[in-house]
């Protein structure tokens, strides 16, 4: 399920984090998760749950999404990744012709929260789950 609104968040044990600008901010000693590194992801991005927490319980935010496949999409967000292991940030094709950066966490507690939503986040959030964008529908027709 996609989440677009400000303060929407995900908690997981493994995630894929993508954005156009993605850089580590500072190591922290967090009262709830202990040693972690904070990453700032700006200029549009998304973080998707690839591995659920076990047990499936909230650690930081009681409203955070926990299910496999849940993701946040926004203008900017931050991610807290447990431990001080550095992440190799890879260059990827992000959207259209735009390049982006990506890193993934595996077996490390990860928390990501929206800090700045898209201007049309309210509209995006109100779309039904099975909504297909007109352009996608058109492309599918052409291929068919």
């Amino acid at each position, binding site marked *: 399920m996609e989440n677009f609104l400000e*303060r929407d968040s995900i908690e997981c044990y493994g995630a894929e984090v993508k954005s156009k600008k993605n850089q580590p901010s*500072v190591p922290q000693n967090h009262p709830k998760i202990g040693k972690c590194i904070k990453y700032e992801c700006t200029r549009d991005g998304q973080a998707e749950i690839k591995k659920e927490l076990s047990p499936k319980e909230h650690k930081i935010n009681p409203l955070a999404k926990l299910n496999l496949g849940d993701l946040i999409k926004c203008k900017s967000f931050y991610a807290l990744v447990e431990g*001080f292991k550095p992440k190799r940030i890879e260059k990827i094709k992000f959207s259209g012709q735009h390049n982006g950066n990506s890193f993934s966490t595996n077996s490390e507690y990860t928390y990501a929260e929206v800090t700045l939503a898209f201007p049309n986040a309210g509209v995006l959030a109100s779309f039904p789950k099975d909504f297909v964008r007109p352009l996608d529908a058109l492309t599918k027709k052409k291929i068919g």
Partner: protein
Amino acid sequence: MENLLPEINTNKFIPKGIPYLEGQSKQDTLQMDVALNIDILKNNTSVFSFCGNSTHFPNDFNSLKGIILNWVNASYQAKKEDYYIIAVRNLRKKINFLRLNNDFNNEEISDEEYSQEIENNPNKYIIDIKYLSDPNEIHCVNDIINRIGGDFTYDEVGELLSIDTENLKSAFTKLMK
């Protein structure tokens, strides 16, 4: 000897009942709010120490109010000073970390060296995130952020002043009510 401190029940001087006078600034009001959380009964001596060398207890209500405001103002400023120092320390840590990260990206240090450098020098790199010890400290935080100017997100403020983001959000929400 007549000027010595009379035996007075100090309960009646707790600033709970002190009305805000006309012409008081917002700052004064904030200080009075902070004052509510200070247990004056435990620190009677420090209240009287503001009288200077005189041991005369002021009978005048406004003088007493002035003394209490001075005292509260001093503690408020001290708290703000603490936050300024925390902010400078955190910014230094952030700069140190960005340098380390730059070395890592240029492949001058390995993954292990990177982790070890952070773990062996926590004072140089790691920011300790804490909860607000007193909910009224949010006034200090608000004041500092307003003086710095610009747009801040909750996580930026939390990172700058070593405060947990969720704690900060709930405190600001209460402040805005």
